[in-house]
């Protein structure tokens, strides 16, 4: 045990004394989350929208004027039928359409409530949700104005419709995606490089010619990166909740548990890579290429898996981050518990066990 602890301490020395490692370990996640954070929260200006005004009365004109004055919208033209709206969406010239039904003003003043429909092109879910939020804010603003004049509260009901991607999968796609990406990249890269470095420096030779159990070499390599990754995860979570308003609706311990599973999975993968390579560059290349691309492609946060051809969907099943991504979304956004995600958890755990077993079995107790 004393040996093990000394080894772990040595690994921490390696990390803290190498500025490059520190930068990679903590700089990259922060940079990524901030980058994606701004991509997500960036204001959208001058989006082209259309208004379909069946009512054409004083209330609708007032709202349309308000929309015009907003710097976010650029009202292209007023059209008069649903058919035209659909055509405009299909050509991709507009992002949003607002439809006022007949007798909008009458309904508002006589029935005390009226409806307005907002239709958004949700194939780009981030833009769609931002724009609908802007539009409904403006309409709510008008409602508040009316409240100042009238004593009876008048209600405008906005009916938001997302077309092309009605479930709006992708609103909070980035944070869980970046979490998977960062944890995988950092862990795989760090472990593989740190073991290969021992080979390259020749220290592995001495370690092998010692009573130290090779399995302990592996484990003591994994421990520091496991804890550093948890620190990383905490940074990501703090940044994404404060910077991007990402909710954590589910249990935080469960989130950490699932993340630990992914970290272990990544560490085992890193060990496996370090077994088959002899230079730090090769280890780095394999980790980057072998991790970055599949994670980006097949996790589902960049490209929806449902839209992929069948063979690619099958390949995606072999990517650990896909399962992690599902569990994280379920926990953070839907607030679900373990009962809803036990299947994904089990798959992830299975992958981890498999990779760990293979990498320990493949660990070379000799040089060649």
């Amino acid at each position, binding site marked *: 045990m004393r040996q093990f602890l000394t080894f772990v301490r040595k690994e921490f020395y390696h990390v803290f004394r190498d500025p490059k490692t520190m930068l990679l370990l903590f700089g990259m996640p922060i940079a990524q989350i901030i980058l994606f954070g701004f991509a997500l929260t960036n204001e959208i200006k001058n989006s082209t929208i259309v208004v379909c005004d069946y009512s054409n009365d004083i209330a609708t004109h007032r709202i349309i004027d308000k929309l015009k004055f907003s710097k976010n919208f650029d009202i292209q033209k007023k059209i008069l039928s649903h058919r035209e709206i659909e055509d405009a969406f299909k050509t991709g010239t507009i992002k949003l359409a607002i439809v006022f039904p007949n007798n909008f003003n009458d309904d508002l003043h006589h029935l005390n409530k009226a409806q307005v429909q907002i239709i958004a092109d949700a194939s780009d879910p981030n833009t769609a949700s931002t724009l609908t939020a802007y539009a409904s804010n403006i309409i709510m603003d008008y409602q508040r104005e009316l409240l100042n004049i009238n004593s009876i509260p008048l209600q405008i009901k906005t009916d938001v419709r997302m077309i092309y991607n009605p479930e709006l999968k992708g609103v909070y796609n980035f944070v869980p995606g970046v979490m998977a990406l960062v944890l995988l990249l950092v862990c795989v890269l760090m472990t593989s490089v740190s073991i290969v470095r021992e080979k390259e420096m020749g220290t592995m030779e001495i*370690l092998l010619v*010692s009573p130290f159990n090779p399995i302990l070499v592996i484990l003591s390599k994994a421990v520091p990166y496991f804890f550093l990754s948890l620190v990383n995860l905490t940074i990501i979570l703090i940044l994404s909740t404060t910077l991007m308003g990402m909710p954590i609706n589910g249990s935080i311990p469960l989130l950490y548990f699932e993340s630990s599973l992914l970290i272990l999975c990544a560490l085992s993968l890193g060990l496996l890579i370090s077994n088959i390579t002899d230079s730090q560059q090769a280890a780095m290349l394999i980790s980057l290429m072998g991790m970055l691309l599949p994670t980006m492609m097949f996790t589902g946060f960049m490209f929806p898996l449902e839209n992929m051809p069948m063979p690619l969907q099958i390949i995606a099943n072999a990517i650990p981050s896909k399962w992690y991504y599902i569990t994280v979304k379920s926990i953070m956004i839907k607030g679900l518990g373990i009962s809803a995600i036990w299947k994904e958890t089990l798959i992830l755990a299975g992958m981890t066990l498999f990779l760990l077993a293979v990498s320990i079995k493949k660990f070379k107790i*000799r040089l060649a």
Partner: protein
Amino acid sequence: MPDVVLNNIVKTYNKGEIKAVDDVSFSVKDGELFGLIGPDGAGKTSIFRILTTLLLPDSGTATVNGFDIVKEYKSIRKKVGYMPGKFSLYQDLTVEENLNFFATVFDTTIKENYDLIRDIYVQIEPFKDRRAGKLSGGMKQKLALCCALIHRPKVLFLDEPTTGVDTVSRKEFWEMLKRLKQQGITILVSTPYMDEATLCERIALIQNGKIMSIDTPQNIVKQFPEKLFAIKSNSMSRLLHDLRNNRHVKSCFAFGEYHHITFENNSETESNQLIQDLHLQNHKEITLKHINPTIEDCFINLMN
């Protein structure tokens, strides 16, 4: 049973294309200082790695401290100290941290075996808070030796410990080895420097994976078959050429400020004839003297 025994060890690389160790057998006695002498690429490192259980031989058997290198590798790893040819400590850890780390890896403490490394460690102790990567070559070697000794090994394997180390440090290093030998540690050391061979008790001359001769340095020198002469003149490069073309000269090698030569018939009369020939070829200030061969002379002789 001798501490190290090799029987017909063969090791090839690239699926048999390169023969690194070719049917090597020798043994090292308890407490002996044994030298493996040969140029780069002779197979010294391969032999060391086989004995330290880092590589498996293609064929042949070997034991270290009575344990089989294949089946009982775990026992060997507890008993031996190994210092690879390349400086192999953690460059980003300090001297003290390195030593502490290796002491712990071998399940011991610096204190426990301090008497063994004291002579060496006091020399690097003033730098104990310095990172190992920032040490000079000689210091690095001393630190590496300390780390290899920290668990009081039975057998010590030193792979080219003096390569890239200055002359003074080299001399000091060999003195340290002699002191370690007195502690009863069996030492197997390899070196490409022939002048270090005489500092070993017994040596094996190795070339292209084959052992050419194993004996004490004195005996190897004695076995030199011919009389050896050293010769110099005012124009050494021309002299080398002329000597090699001379009918009396059997072999001729440049050797520092002299050329070393042997004669065809090993007779004194030839030396006079040679000097006459050289005078005719306009060589001036010729000195010719009979000398005792060195290990390097023996090595060159064996190579041919």
